[in-house]
Each structure stands twice: as C-alpha cells, then as structure tokens.
C-alpha cells in the first residue's frame, strides 16, 4: 500500500487544496505554541484575500501579545496606544470611508484600559470591524487578572482564583456593546477546532461585507486560549476553555442585522 501510494504522487501544485496565504508573512509568528492569535490572523488574511480587498484594508493593532500583528499581516497597519485602537480606527475610517478598517484587540486592551474607546466607538456606530480576542487574561505581561477573568479563575494577580466579592464580576463586554444601537452585528466564536475555525472565518467575512453597507460596528469576539498564562499545554488549555470559558462566554451570534438574537438560539451547540 505504501508503495502504491508513493507512486500516486499527488504532491503537485495543481493538487494543493490548502496552503497558508502569502498575506501572512513567511517568518515565524511570535506567539506561543497553540495560541489562537495565529489562527485568527490567518483567517482574517484569508477573508481579505478572498474578498480581494487587502489593498484597501487598514488594520489597527493593539498592545498585548498581538502588538506585533502589524509585522505579521502583509497589509497596511497602524499601531495604537494601549486600548485606543477604536479611536484610531474611527479617524482612519472617517478619512478613508472607501477603505475597509478593523481593530484587532485583546481583552486587556479592549475591555480594561480601552473600555471607553470601545463603548463610544460602538455607540457612535463607526463603520469598522472590531476583532476581539478574549483569553480571559493579560497574556503578554505575565497572565494578570483581566476584567474578563472568570470567577475562581487563577491568574498571576489572583493566585487563589478570582474572588468576586473583592475583585468584582467578570465583564461581558460583548453582550454590553450588543445593546448599543450603533452596533449592527455581534458574534462570539472560537478557533480551537476545524469547525470553529471555519465559523470564525465566516463571521469575519460577514463583518467585512457589512462595511460595504455602512451599517455600523461589526464586532467579532473569538474566545481563545492563553495556554502560557493559564499554565497548561495547548491541548489542555483548549479543553479547559470548552469546560469553563464557553459556559460563561457562550458561542454563537448575539446580534444580527441590528437585532439581538433570542437567548435560546445563542447557545451554539456543536
């Protein structure tokens, strides 16, 4: 069988059905093994490539592990100060309304230091896409507690687990911004299985398609692992994420066509 297979020789360019897009650099990404940032980067670049809008797209990178996104995505990028990406993206989109604009932000960036910028850009109904990578922690700086850290979840600044009476409740910023009239599309996805990766790509595609219609903010959250910060292997971290993050941050669409999705449908079983 081995021999016959070798003879078949299907490793030819015309038989390629999947290959990393050239819109993602060929250099190694700086992310830890198994981190979702790389997968989201790749899906984002595939969407821009398939829509053929990569020459007309400007991204705003955050502060956090993905601070280097400008270095990995072969498109026009601007680096914003911590949390200020939605303010920068507002200016860019207003100056170049015919361009596609997105921010790429972690939970520390978007839901802690940048809360004001996030909420006001969403409430103003700016016409760009927000890509929000929620790993429940400040990954880059050593795994400190974030507003998104789950109750009881350990972090370097909550070593015995987040104690809600003293440390407060986690902030579901995605559900919060979904309430705002300036926000047109809100969804929460993941990238730890092939099926989830494909759904994330579809959600990103939809978010960029909506920019053509100037309907307001399209907000795509991706619940992701920070296996280094969580102190687990990537495979363990993905399992932990399914068991602990998804019940609190259920996957699925939250707002579609400017309308909140009924709770029942929100839990995406699969």
């Amino acid at each position, binding site marked *: 069988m081995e021999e016959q*297979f070798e003879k078949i020789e299907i490793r030819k360019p015309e038989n390629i059905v999947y290959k990393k897009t050239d819109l993602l650099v060929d250099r190694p990404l700086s992310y830890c093994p198994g981190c979702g940032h790389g997968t989201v980067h790749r899906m984002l670049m595939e969407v821009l490539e398939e829509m053929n809008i990569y020459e007309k797209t400007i991204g705003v990178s955050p502060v956090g592990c993905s601070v280097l996104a400008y270095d990995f995505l072969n498109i026009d990028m601007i680096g914003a100060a911590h949390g200020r990406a939605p303010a920068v993206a507002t200016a860019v989109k207003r100056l170049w309304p015919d361009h596609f604009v997105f921010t790429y932000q972690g939970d520390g960036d978007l839901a802690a230091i940048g809360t004001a910028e996030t909420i006001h850009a969403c409430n103003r109904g700016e016409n760009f896409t927000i890509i929000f990578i929620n790993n429940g922690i400040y990954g880059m700086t050593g795994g400190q507690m974030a507003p998104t850290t789950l109750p009881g979840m350990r972090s370097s600044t909550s070593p015995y687990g987040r104690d809600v009476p003293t440390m407060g409740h986690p902030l579901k910023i995605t559900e919060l911004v979904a309430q705002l009239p300036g926000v047109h599309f809100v969804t929460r996805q993941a990238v730890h299985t092939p099926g989830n990766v494909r759904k994330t790509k579809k959600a990103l595609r939809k978010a960029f398609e909506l920019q053509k219609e100037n309907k307001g903010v399209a907000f795509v959250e991706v619940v992701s692992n920070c296996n280094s910060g969580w102190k687990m292997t990537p495979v363990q971290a993905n399992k932990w994420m399914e068991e602990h993050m998804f019940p609190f941050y259920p996957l699925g669409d939250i707002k579609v066509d400017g309308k909140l999705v009924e709770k029942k449908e929100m839990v995406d079983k699969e």
Partner: protein
Amino acid sequence: MAKIKGDIVINTERCKGCEVCIAACPFTVIAMSKDVNSKGYHFAMKVNDECTGCTNCAVVCPDGVITVYRAKVTTE
C-alpha cells in the same frame, strides 16, 4: 476505481509542537516525532496513508505550517 486521495506536507522546522492538529484529523494521520527541530520542538509528522485531504489539520494549525493536497486517483 476512482478514489479521493489526500496528502499533507508539514513544515517541520516551523512546527511548534502544540499537538492541536492531532485531534483534528479524523483518520489519525498525524503523530508527534521523537526528534526535535532546531527550535527544540517535537514536530508533527504523517504516520499513515489514510489522509483524504480534508484540510482539518491545516485549518486548525495556529502557525499555518501544513499544506494539503487532494486528487482523484484510479486504483485497480
């Protein structure tokens, strides 16, 4: 008989050994090497001939290091 055959090529130097691709493969085509690459990571490798070219492993690989081939082949 015509049959769909798949194949993968893993850029083992770029693989970070996260093992996320292993569970993604419906035909357990991928396992980890005993050897390490120049960065010190055990890398993913193909261990059988069952690949159908479904692209699951490549889609989920955080570092995009897997290329997938698929073709219709005729066997006697």
